[in-house]
């Protein structure tokens, strides 16, 4: 079919939507800013709750879109609204006239150094969830010593549920990611004490609660209810963490070899930039605004512009996949009705 479909973003949502549109007989065009496909998933090690290797899923998703037109290392320069279509100008000099644009621009990880009290970028022993996944994948991180660790900590809600940081929303996946990473650390260092500092544990998904119980019972991960207030380095080059143990009603301190900050999801500034070219609105949480947050998440307020994945709010991989399929069907119905 000759109708052009432009998909902005080659992450999980973009790839899955493209694969479904190809199966429906279309030839979608994927525009990706990075030099590779897969988005954040390409940097991840394995996924909760079954420890599925992220590379398997990325490879599968990329394999399904071999028939699509893919432009990597390409950005959107501008989008013009024509009478009943859009003119999309790409940084590689190509311009596309299309009636359908799908935003799969995703999220950006919260910049953990903004929470200065946690010492990211100041102390070598403080890393983020993404850094840890990278280390699991490559075994390379100059900050992490090769010696066995005695104590490791995880701080939940870094830049999430934090009005002062400008992100009041819950990032949804960090609770379960912390549990997953805590288990992985316990597997690597069975003798280590692993602490999770949390405010609430939001185990909403399939088998998440089982995973949490397993972290407690089988791996002995210790959960401390209380937000870390400050981190400092001691003379031995370890970090001292202070928090309130709100269940005991007492302050608590502990010395750690490694502290992992669970940086949350914030709206990708690139997605807001592109959205503003065709005056699409953002919602009160900073993410792109759907036509309706219950009935019509994948539609925008403009005809022919669709959304899928974390550009409209924090989502898990299965939720993103489901939304991408749903958006593909919506696009198919939209083109049929033209």
């Amino acid at each position, binding site marked *: 079919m000759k109708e052009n479909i432009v998909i902005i973003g080659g992450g999980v949502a973009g790839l899955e939507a493209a694969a479904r549109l190809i199966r429906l007989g279309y030839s979608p065009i994927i525009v990706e800013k990075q030099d590779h496909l897969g988005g954040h998933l390409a940097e991840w090690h394995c996924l909760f709750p079954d420890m599925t290797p992220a590379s398997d899923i990325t490879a599968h998703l990329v394999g399904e879109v071999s028939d699509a037109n893919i432009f990597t290392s390409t950005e959107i320069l501008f989008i013009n609204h024509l009478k009943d279509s859009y003119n999309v100008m790409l940084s590689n000099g190509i311009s596309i006239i299309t009636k359908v644009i799908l935003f799969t621009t995703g999220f950006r990880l919260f910049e953990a150094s903004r929470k200065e009290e946690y010492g990211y970028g100041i102390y070598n022993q403080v890393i983020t969830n993404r850094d840890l996944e990278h280390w699991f994948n490559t075994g390379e991180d100059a900050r992490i010593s090769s010696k066995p660790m005695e104590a490791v900590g995880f701080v939940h809600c870094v830049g999430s549920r934090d009005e002062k940081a400008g992100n009041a929303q819950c990032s949804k996946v960090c609770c379960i990611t912390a549990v997953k990473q805590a288990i992985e650390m316990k597997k690597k260092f069975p003798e280590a004490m692993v602490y999770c500092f949390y405010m609430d544990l939001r185990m909403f998904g399939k088998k998440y609660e089982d995973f949490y119980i397993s972290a407690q019972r089988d791996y002995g991960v210790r959960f401390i209810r209380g937000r870390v207030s400050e981190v400092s380095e001691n003379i031995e080059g370890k970090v001292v963490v202070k928090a309130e*143990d709100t269940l005991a009603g007492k302050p608590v301190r*502990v010395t750690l070899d490694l502290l992992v900050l669970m940086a949350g999801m914030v709206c990708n500034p690139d997605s807001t930039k592109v959205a503003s070219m065709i005056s699409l609105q953002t919602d009160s949480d900073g993410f792109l605004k759907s036509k309706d947050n219950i009935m019509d998440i994948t539609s925008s307020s403009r005809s022919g512009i669709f959304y899928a994945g974390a550009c409209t709010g924090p989502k898990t991989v299965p939720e993103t996949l489901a939304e991408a399929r749903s958006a593909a069907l919506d696009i198919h119905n939209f083109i049929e009705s033209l």
Partner: protein
Amino acid sequence: MNFGFSITPSSTINLDKVDRTMFEHLHEIEPDVYKCMACGSCSSTCPAGRFSGMSVRKVILALQRGREKEAAGMLKGCMLCGKCSMVCPRGINTRHLILSICRIYNKEQQ
């Protein structure tokens, strides 16, 4: 000399200094002790709690934080009625756990 004020010792729990040997021994016998998620069902249903300060939730927490004396004080109020075992959503056999705690920690003190 009286300065007109006094200082109480720090209430901070220092996890670096907690001796975990006894708790780990307890965990070998009662693996479910790790499963407590501090919901407080046991404490709210405890008929002795409101008079004696007994709370299974607080006992588990105190033992994890190395505050055995606090835990022992609370356990004195337990009548072993077992109501807490009935309400625990994680299925911890709290009555059995209490008996194990008393046995292990008493033995260590002798």
